[in-house]
């Protein structure tokens, strides 16, 4: 691949890849490493990919594989098992409330979502990939992507609601008033 093609590819996808990496990794530095590693793999192996239209999926798939490669598989399974059914219920949070939050708070809430949901959710919000392409990247069935998006959104809204509550200083609960009883005589 010529240099100019590589630069165009980087410019087109590196912000979205970094944001996806940031939702998966523990720190910005790890996210940077993952993004760099993804393009490094592309530079060494991706040139064999003749279909340029598939470059986007290839890059996201590679980043996710690199992420999984760098961590223990058992953690992922645990995350899947610890999702409570109650979290599927959609929390009531106004879209305006999300817009009013700063980016750091939203990202922190997203990172707090179980990884099994976080990866498809981030890819969905980045809007680069369809649900079918997300399924290909994560190597899970399309129906599973829909299910994880549904539950992930619920979990995220619950986290955002909690974050909003904390930011606002918490809900003030009025202490119950008691009527004074008459003296005992």
């Amino acid at each position, binding site marked *: 691949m010529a240099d100019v093609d590589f630069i165009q590819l980087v410019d087109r996808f590196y912000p979205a890849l970094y944001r996806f990496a940031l939702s998966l990794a523990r720190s910005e530095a790890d996210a940077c490493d993952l993004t760099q590693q993804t393009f490094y793999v592309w530079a060494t192996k991706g040139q064999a990919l003749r279909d340029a239209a598939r470059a986007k999926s290839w890059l996201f798939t590679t980043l996710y594989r690199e992420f999984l490669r760098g961590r223990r598989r058992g953690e992922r399974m645990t995350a899947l098992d610890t999702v409570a059914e109650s979290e599927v219920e959609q929390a009531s949070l106004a879209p305006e409330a999300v817009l009013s939050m700063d980016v750091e708070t939203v990202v922190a809430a997203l990172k707090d979502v179980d990884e099994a949901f976080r990866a498809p959710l981030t890819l969905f919000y980045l*809007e680069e990939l369809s649900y079918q392409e997300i399924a290909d990247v994560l190597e899970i069935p399309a129906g599973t992507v829909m299910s994880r998006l549904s539950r992930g959104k619920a979990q995220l809204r619950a986290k955002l609601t909690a974050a909003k509550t904390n930011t606002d200083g918490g809900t003030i609960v009025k202490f119950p008033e008691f009527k004074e009883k008459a003296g005992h005589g």
Partner: protein
Amino acid sequence: MDNEEAKFILRAYRPSGVDAGEAAFCASLEQAKRDPALGAWFEREQAHDRAMTEKMRGVAVPAGLRDAILAGGKMSARSTRVWWSQPRWMALAASVMLLIGLAVSWPRLAATRAEKRFGEFAMNDMLHVPSHAAHGPGMGQLAALVSDPQRKLGGGLPIDFEALRANGCRTLSFAGRDVLEVCFTRDGGDYHVYVMKKTGDMRAVREGPLFAREDGATSAVWSDDAHVYALVGSRGAESLRALL
């Protein structure tokens, strides 16, 4: 499809509308248009998704990441070899060349071994077999030829192999092949010429002589188009060379 099923599907519908043509969403989108409650839910869901998308796009990318990626790409491009110069292909090419080399040189190597063995065979016969006198009537002309002091043997001899064998020339067997022996004298020395047809691994025997020495005997093996010869004597290589 009830509304819960429609919601399940519509949660995967991207807020930018890029999935509008996707067949999987058509029925749910139609249902959201027809059902006010579902429509209101979908509108709110999309607003949520748009808000999240906006926040995600607001995540700042660290300064220097782009440059680091491009630098890494350049480094990998430098270190990436073209396919044919990668170690496994180089190894394969070397193996192929080795095989070709062996295939080309194998007949020559085999012939060299056969030449040596033929020379050893001839020397052993001269040294250890007491009688070499079984010469038939047809041998006179050939014996006279090889005994001629002016005659050089190196260019080969006018031998009718089958006729000589039929006329009672001494016949031995070497590696399954018939070998004829002609004895003669030159300058007071006794010599023996062993002749066999040039077939099989003997085809590549060189025309120039290959000398060998064993227990006081010296041999010179060479060939012409039809035959392989082993000349054996006890006066050393120089005496043989003088005859060739």
